[in-house]
């Protein structure tokens, strides 16, 4: 395998759920990614600063406390403004409060500029595979 891809990971907003975040870090590291984990309570600016300095190919945003929509709005636009036009944005977790059908959640976050949207029930193996593919696709 060639040089591992750099990715940035973190829990956005005023969210301090840290367990899943540690699992994601361990999983992606083990699967050959170079992970910069920003931990919990990460602002959009911090995600972008980390992605710029590390030359990351993707930002993986977690949100578990239901305020994902407010916290994530505008992230894509800010990335573009800071010269990260090509960065891959993933988001996952408990993204909204209440029983909204997941298809609607996906649609909402895709409109906000996220490339892929995950619920809290996905398979990490699939996710890693998708991420690798998406990065390779973007690099072409």
């Amino acid at each position, binding site marked *: 395998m060639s040089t591992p891809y*750099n990715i940035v990971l973190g829990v956005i907003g005023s*969210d*301090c759920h840290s367990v899943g975040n540690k699992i994601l870090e361990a999983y992606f590291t083990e699967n050959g990614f170079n992970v910069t984990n920003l931990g919990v*309570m990460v602002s959009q600016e911090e995600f972008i600063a*980390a992605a*710029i300095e*590390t*030359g990351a190919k993707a930002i993986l945003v977690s949100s578990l*406390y239901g305020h994902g929509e407010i916290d994530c709005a505008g992230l894509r636009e800010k990335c573009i403004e800071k010269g990260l036009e090509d960065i891959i944005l993933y988001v996952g977790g408990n993204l909204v409060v209440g029983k909204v059908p997941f298809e609607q959640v996906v649609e909402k976050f895709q409109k906000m500029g996220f490339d892929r949207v995950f619920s809290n029930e996905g398979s990490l193996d699939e996710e890693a595979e998708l991420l690798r593919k998406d990065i390779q696709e973007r690099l072409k």
Partner: protein
Amino acid sequence: MIPQKIICVDIGSTYTKGAVFNPTEDRFNVSARAVVPTTVNYLPDGFYKVLEALIPGSGSKQAYDKAEFPVFFSSSAKGGLKIAVIGLVPEMSLNIARLAAFSAGARVCAAFPYRLGKANIAQIESLAPDILLFCGGTDGGNERYALENSKMIAASKFAGTIIYAGNNFVADEVAETLSNKDIVVTENVMPDFGKLNIEPVRDAIRKVFLEKIISGKGLDELVKKFETLPVPTPLAVFNLAKAIGENVKDWDNFAIIDMGGATTDFYSYTNAFHYDGETVMKGILEPILKRTVEGDLGMRVSAESTYETGTDYFGSIGFDESKLNELKNYTLKVSESPEYLPENEKEKMFDRSLAGACIYHSLLRHAGTIEEVFTIKGRIWAQIGKDLRKINKIIGTGGYLAAMGRNNEKIIIPSEPSTPCEKIPLLPQKFTYHADNTYILPLLANLAEKYPKQCAVTAIESLINEQQN
């Protein structure tokens, strides 16, 4: 074996100062002191005059017996060591690059984030810094900006030394692009995101200072004659702060303010973050010993800008409009004649107020902040920058603070911001003020690297404990 007599000389931009120290087992006693105007055109002339005044017969250019008295010296002549820094994200690699330059005793004359434009290059050319500290990107991280910026620098007229301390994956390529320049490559200041690696850059800056910057000012002659290597004065003070923090009991949370006519230097020795279960650290964790330099805060050359910056502070210590106007006129007067000394009580009060503003604002800029964040687990605090709340001692040095200390003039150092801030600054809460009334610290500081323990003990004993906050 400590020699019986040691001479320390500090070549400042205005005065060349010297002292003879008589070391004992555990401290250095001062036995003679001398001051002469700095001979700007040829620095050794003033240096020899000081030696002659300290030990008659020693100031001739004849052979020098090292066994009899070793000589240590520092220099901040010609404005000291001037560095421009280039980084990527302002809060990250650029901030770390600034910290590294400051902790090497330099003055940062400009800082550029992201991509260098033509205007930035023009600014670098006209400022003509001694060193261009070129950072940005983690190791294996961002390559684009370093590669693009190196081309811009290669095409510029910049003639000083470039220290590259960015993404090491492109170090070779950057060095190749800049092979027409004087370039030094060292380790990345931020190898991983948010991780500081300042020491290699400090070393590189020090080497450049010794190899390149001291030549041409006559300092190289002194190096040869006395077989000793000079340090930039602020680096000597930095070493002294480290020595005090590591060697003196009860001095593990303190600050040093070194105030001059043009700049105010602030050194803090305290842990940057104190874990308390309800505060989270954001951004970089700053080092235990941190130095910052404020180029717009000073007592003479920078008096006008100090007035502009300090308006709120002056209001908070009771200045009304007419008094503010008087102060403004005073700053206009003294900024044009840097040698000016206050002639009456009112002018002394103005100087005290200016000193207070320099201290307050350098403190505010040096300190980090916290802000309240509400989460589902309740309220927590997010901290950015360095927590100075545990600092319980502040040392004041530099000519003005020394003189004010001797005259028993009191300076007000607030522990709260003078105007309400959105984020709470982490200022020292309860501290004692210690004045370097004899202004011995910069001279003593020359010995801090070689004799840290004795030097630190002597420094603390020489201070006058003046006031309680």
